[in-house]
């Protein structure tokens, strides 16, 4: 049992040096997110001039978006440094729906025709 005088046990505290490290991480992540977004917008405006395949561009967008999502959740939302139990509780239910929807898209929609067209 906790001593009631002790401040909140699970609230995060850190020192000045740790804070410096955290701030460096925050700004590094900012540059990563900015770079990915700039590439996305540049590609969105210019892909026709560069003679790229639309399907390739589309897949690049989706991969980059999932990459950005990973950086936001892992670092800004701090999930990477939470306990495994908490990570799994959040990620597994979400992954179930995402995988299910992907399964539906790949099998029930006309997505297979689309893939025939692609390859």
């Amino acid at each position, binding site marked *: 049992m906790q001593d009631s005088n002790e401040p*909140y046990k699970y609230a995060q505290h850190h020192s000045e040096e740790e804070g410096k490290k955290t701030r460096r991480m925050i700004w590094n992540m900012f540059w990563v997110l900015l770079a990915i977004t700039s590439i996305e917008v540049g590609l969105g405006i210019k892909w026709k001039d560069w003679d790229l395949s639309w399907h390739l561009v*589309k897949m690049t967008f989706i991969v980059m978006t999932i990459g950005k999502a990973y950086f*936001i959740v892992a670092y800004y939302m701090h999930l990477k440094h939470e306990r495994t139990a908490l990570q799994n509780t959040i990620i597994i239910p979400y992954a179930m729906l995402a995988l299910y929807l992907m399964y539906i898209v790949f099998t029930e929609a006309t997505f297979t025709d689309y893939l025939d067209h692609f390859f």
Partner: protein
Amino acid sequence: MSHTEVVDSKTAWAGDNNSPFGAGYGKLMMWFFLMSDALSFTGFLAAYGFYRHEYTAIWPTAENVFTHFPFVHGHQPLLYVALMTFILIMSSVTMVLAVEAGQRMDKKQVIVWMFWTIIGGLIFVGSQAWEWYHFIHGTELGAFELGIGTFDVNGTIEQTQGIIGRWADESKEVLLLPWREVAGDLTSPYMQLTGQALTDAMANGQAIHGANLTHNEYGHPLFADFFFFITGFHGTHVFSGVVLNFIIFVNVIMGTYEKRGHYEMVEKVGLYWHFVDLVWVFVFTFFYLV
């Protein structure tokens, strides 16, 4: 009994007992809420994807819809929404800096960073309102929605009802139909309607300006429905995020968390705010880019 643990209502709800998650009650519940909210947004965007795929030929492309930039004339596809995205990412950065300052118990910096987060959120909500206004208002030229009839597209008979044709220029003598002449090739020219064929087609159609839930000058009305619903739902999240941030901001100024000994409340609204940014990352990709 050597291990007696008393759980009164205060410790039970504050999460002060040892927990397998190593997180306070409020933070844990925020995570659960965000996960379920993510499921909703995933459902919406997946539904959008299905309909978009179903009506590929007549679905509008965002770069032809969102071409305005405040105070600048001319064709600026995607630029304003890129700026909005940048502002939201930036406000996510200021939010996480506020959380970091809170972990050092640095009240002054928490105030500064939360202030900028709120400003960023307000600019974003304002930008969304501006974009809605332009989408609802539409273009000067407008478009033409065809009535009941059929049309031969490379040997396939297509129904014309509800199909949106756009004018080639101000003279309104050439109507561009959304079917591409070569199926699947997005860069090929639009099918054109002129002369008598145009007069016939216009007989039972109607001119359209802008978009609402039943008509959309840019293409399929479902695009407008999904746009209003998904960006509206996201905008509601941003707005409530700004309100929550503001409440916590006032509490920070009043020294509530200084007295409590921790700034976990800032961390909780921070989680919510990052989630709003996270959703926008997906909305941006699936609505504006893909």
